[in-house]
């Protein structure tokens, strides 16, 4: 017994390194100066309870994932342009990936396991951490500093983590990988792709959603959403709710022509629900759905 306890004590630092650890521990490791910008004010850490004190209107987006806490440091240059470094502990690599994935619009920046940079905003993820670095003020001047800071921070966040298993359900053919997203809640879905003002798919913290846009040539396209519910009964309830609100005229295949002359389709199997929106044809909607529900 003593030997086991001894081994656990020995292994603890390594286990902490693998699982992440407390975000405030990043403070001493992150440079206090990046190019012309110097750390300004005290570092801060916000938890699930205090995140509202840090952000106005955006906290729910993080809380709907398994957000744990965020480390915040500000940097300022002589002209008072301010850089904000946020390192979010999302609890797991799947959640960190998810947080990164729902708001992608810019070109890859080559930092961490996935990244993007556009006009004063650098976003990337690695392991269980999602990182956002922004500037208030002169975005062009700050670009080099943002990227430099990101490159300094990324190695501290290791090791790499796996993206959500669920993404493997989405067929690769025709998939626009920069549209690939993973999330849980209706607030994420509606910001990514507006479906309905009410939560007609019964999404919540326990549902997992994978989303991507598809195009094969110019004539075959669609949008694919796959939802995994905690059990088959909940998936069936959601399917009924969706049919009633969105596709009341669905045919025996679960498909209907929508107002833009494109097709929507819903399929359920076990605890999985697959919905295709804005598909170029019923046949293509069926192909996408069949690739998931196989």
């Amino acid at each position, binding site marked *: 017994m003593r030997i086991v306890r001894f081994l656990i004590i020995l292994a603890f630092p390594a286990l902490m390194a693998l699982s992440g650890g407390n975000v405030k521990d990043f403070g001493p490791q992150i440079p206090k100066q990046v190019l012309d910008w110097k750390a300004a004010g005290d570092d801060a850490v916000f938890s699930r309870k205090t995140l509202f004190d840090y952000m106005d209107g955006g906290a729910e987006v993080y809380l709907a994932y398994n957000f744990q806490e965020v480390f915040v440091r500000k940097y300022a240059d002589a002209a008072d342009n301010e850089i904000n470094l946020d390192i979010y502990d999302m609890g797991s690599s799947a959640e960190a990936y998810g947080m990164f994935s729902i708001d992608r619009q810019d070109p890859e920046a080559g930092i961490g396991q996935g990244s993007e940079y556009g006009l004063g905003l650098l976003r990337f993820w690695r392991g269980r951490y999602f990182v956002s670095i922004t500037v208030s003020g002169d975005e062009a001047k700050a670009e080099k500093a943002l990227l430099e800071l990101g490159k300094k921070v990324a190695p501290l966040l290791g090791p790499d983590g796996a993206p959500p298993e669920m993404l493997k359900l989405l067929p690769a053919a025709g998939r626009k990988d920069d549209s690939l997203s993973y999330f849980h809640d209706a*607030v994420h879905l509606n910001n990514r792709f*507006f479906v309905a003002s009410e939560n*007609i798919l019964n999404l919540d913290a326990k549902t997992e959603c994978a989303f991507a846009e598809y195009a094969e040539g110019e004539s075959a396209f669609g949008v694919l959403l796959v939802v995994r519910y905690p059990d088959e009964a909940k998936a069936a309830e959601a399917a009924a709710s969706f049919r009633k609100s969105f596709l009341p005229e669905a045919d025996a295949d679960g498909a209907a022509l929508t107002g833009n002359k494109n097709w929507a389709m819903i399929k359920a199997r076990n605890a999985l629900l697959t919905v295709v929106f804005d598909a170029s044809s019923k046949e293509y909607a069926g192909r996408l759905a069949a690739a998931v529900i196989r």
Partner: protein
Amino acid sequence: MAMNITRRDFIRGSAAAVLGATALGQIPLSAQEKKTRVILIRHPDALDATSAFNEPVIQQMLDEAVAKLLDAGDPVEAFKLLVKPEDIVGIKTNVWSFLPTPAPVEKAIKRRVLDAGVKEENIGLDDHTVRTNPLFQKATALINARPVRTHYLAGMSGCLKNYIMFAESQPDYHPDSCASLGSLFLLPQVKGKTRLNILCALTPQFHGRGPHNFSRRYVWNYKGLIVGLDPVAVDSVGLRLIQAKRRKELGPAQEIPPVPKHIPLADTKYGIGTADPAKIELIKLGWLDDVMI
């Protein structure tokens, strides 16, 4: 109250559905039914080449807008219709660091409230501490002024959402996409006191990204003010502007931010104003280039 609007409603082009109308322009108003007036005023010089606010022009815009709103001969006469010398006036501003209520707008309001005869010591300006600010606690009149922008949860932040600082608990108003924001206007500290709503569309934000839902690339110099007595109607017009800009810049698929259901519900559930565009008399003054609505 369930108010389900789906993607299909928008695909069908019934954008008015979001605002509670069954179909834009299909509801004939009876001759007796008076529309709710909202003024949109724009000026090409409201911001200069460096995007700095032009204070005299903004004063002029506010003056013209309020005079037209109330069919008054001049702005001071108009403000005298809004506030009395014995009023205690709280100007509810917005200090969000990325896009605050512009100082020239605050000054322009205060100047005219003073001109209307209200004593300087009876005029307050506040945002986060309005609940506990002694002047706001005894205020007899409120003026509501803030910029228009998209919001990740509520869809849009406008005059309705600006009163969330009067709430004892702000998170209580977050569920269901902030559906209950209209009820803020029924709080005892607020009810019946709002005399004027000014939605600043000088530099609106039509999309949000990043941790604070702000990126300067989604802000544009529209150089406008949307002014009305009814906060719901003012926000309804603001939403049309945001939708039009999103359609233009982001495409039809992203025309709609998360549906700002709090706007129609402020009308249909809380009865504090008019959301239906068919029941709003939108008067456009000044510069009309790229007006979009």
